[in-house]
């Protein structure tokens, strides 16, 4: 399954014993490496330089000169601290929700359906089915379903769970819901890959040693599926923290739910305040890199790709 590739736990068979040194390696690697340097590394440096730029004297809007204006960072953090915190808060909640949703589902597909390969494959197709329909349209579909005239609000109001005149769309609840929904496959697939290869004899051994099913689950099953949980968490948290579609006013959010991505987009594409957008991007990236390295180090998954 192609999407198994998202998981660091992809079954990579034992590497061939001998890796040769050869000029062919250079020939194979160089084009791709150069491409990534040119369109990933250089832009990153470009972004760092841009983040220190100062407005051109007597210049138009959108004209900046290279400088070392580190105050840009102070300014964006002061102005946009709520957005930054909100982004990581929403992304963290969405990641936990996606994990709670995905684990039982992945367990069902990976363990319970193990003896039925065809059903297992079809179940996996259902998990990735949302990928095949436009991200934006499926988010808009939720917007309609959760809208004030939609079935969910009317049902909740009939049950008096939701007070008259209350909304779901435009609230943090809707944004977190959208983030969770949209990134569920990224969580389910890596966990599935781990659980699919779970040796059930370990679970049986837990039972034989008089452990309760709950203890066996917590002390055997969960630790053995940890690599999947780790990749799933990273693959959900990273895109969720930078996403700005769910939080956008035209989708599930409102101006009160704007995340760091919305602010970067607005500063870059609308206000042409490139240094602010660049500084915010660097802040986002720095937090994510710290998160990734701590997470990966503590969980001991050295092999990243």
């Amino acid at each position, binding site marked *: 399954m192609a999407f198994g*590739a998202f998981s660091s736990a992809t079954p990579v068979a034992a590497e061939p014993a001998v890796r040769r*040194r050869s000029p062919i*390696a250079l020939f194979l690697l160089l084009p791709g490496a150069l491409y990534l340097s040119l369109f990933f*590394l250089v832009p*990153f440096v470009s972004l760092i330089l841009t983040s220190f730029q100062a407005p051109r004297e007597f210049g138009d809007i959108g004209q900046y000169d290279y400088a070392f204006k580190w105050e840009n960072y102070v300014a964006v953090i002061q102005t946009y601290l709520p957005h930054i915190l909100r982004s990581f808060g929403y992304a963290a909640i969405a990641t936990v929700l996606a994990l709670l949703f995905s684990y039982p589902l992945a367990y069902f597909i990976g363990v*319970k359906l193990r003896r039925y390969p*065809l059903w297992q494959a079809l179940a996996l197709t259902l998990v990735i*089915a*949302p990928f095949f329909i436009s991200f934006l349209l499926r988010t808009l579909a939720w917007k309609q379903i959760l809208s004030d005239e939609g079935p969910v609000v009317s049902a909740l109001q009939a049950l008096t769970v939701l007070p008259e005149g209350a909304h779901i769309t435009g609230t943090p609840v809707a944004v977190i819901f959208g983030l969770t929904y949209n990134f569920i496959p990224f969580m389910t697939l890596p966990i599935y890959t781990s659980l699919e290869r779970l040796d059930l004899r370990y679970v049986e051994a837990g039972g034989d040693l008089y452990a309760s099913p709950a203890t066996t689950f917590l002390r055997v099953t969960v630790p053995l599926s940890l690599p999947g949980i780790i990749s799933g968490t990273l693959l959900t948290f990273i895109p969720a923290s930078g996403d700005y579609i769910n939080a956008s006013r035209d989708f599930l959010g409102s101006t009160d739910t704007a995340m760091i991505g919305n602010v970067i987009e607005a500063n870059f594409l609308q206000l042409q305040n490139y240094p602010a957008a660049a500084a915010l991007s660097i802040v986002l990236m720095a937090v*994510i890199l710290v998160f990734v390295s701590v997470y990966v180090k503590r969980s001991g998954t050295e092999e990243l790709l």
Partner: protein
Amino acid sequence: MSVQGGTAIAETAKATPPPGPRRPFRLGVGRWGLGVYAVMAFAFLLIPIVYTIVFSFNDVRRTNIVWRGFTLDNWLNVCDQQEVCQAFGNSILVAVVATVLATTLGTAMAIALVRYRFRFRSATTLLLFLPMATPEVVLGAGLAAQFLAAGIAKGILTIILAHTMFCISFVVVTVRARVASLDPALEEAGRDLYASPAQVFWRITFPLLLPGIIAAALLSFALSFDDFIITTFNSGAAVTFPKYVYTAAARGIPAQANVIASAVFLIAIIGVVIAQVAAGIRRKQLARNG
């Protein structure tokens, strides 16, 4: 190999009768609960998809929010909304070119990573990992800043350059797994039979890698076709399908957009299901013959 071995062991484990009295008493919930949950979870995942498809048949003029009755008009006249069709065409163009570029570059890198020893190995791995660990908004803004600094006008070309960049890593990861599972003895046999290196590659290595390469290409295509965030930073005036949907979201999406998304979805899902059923039939045949 190892996976099959594991399954075989699992089968035997299942075949042994459970030691009855020592097993704690289980409620029916444990037995059926998970299945019921899974069915509900699948239904939940499908809700917005079904919604999008249903509303592609809605009888509407401008906005597609309230159900007004069934019609095939939207499907029969997709290109009445010229912008939708044009955006769709752009998206296909971008996805095809980016997929070809990324698959070529990524496959070569994957082969090199598994097969050869070279310096800067960890640097290369990092260079491949980082784009996957970078939020799209940062990738998009970075490239846009670079195009701005270099004075390159944004358009279809810059979208293709951007998409190729983020697809490469996913291609490498997908193809790498396939290269690693390849038995080097097969290529050795080819060399022993006096095949030239080119013949060994095109007649042995490439056909064996093909399933992995196809999977990587499909993944690239899907990622590129549905990308919005990186595109919007690097597209200038050019409009792709997701970008069209985003701008139209404020004033209402024409039903034709639902038609295109539904058609893409149905084609993809039918293709995947046919492939899986075919693989299932082959598996059964192999099991019977073996």
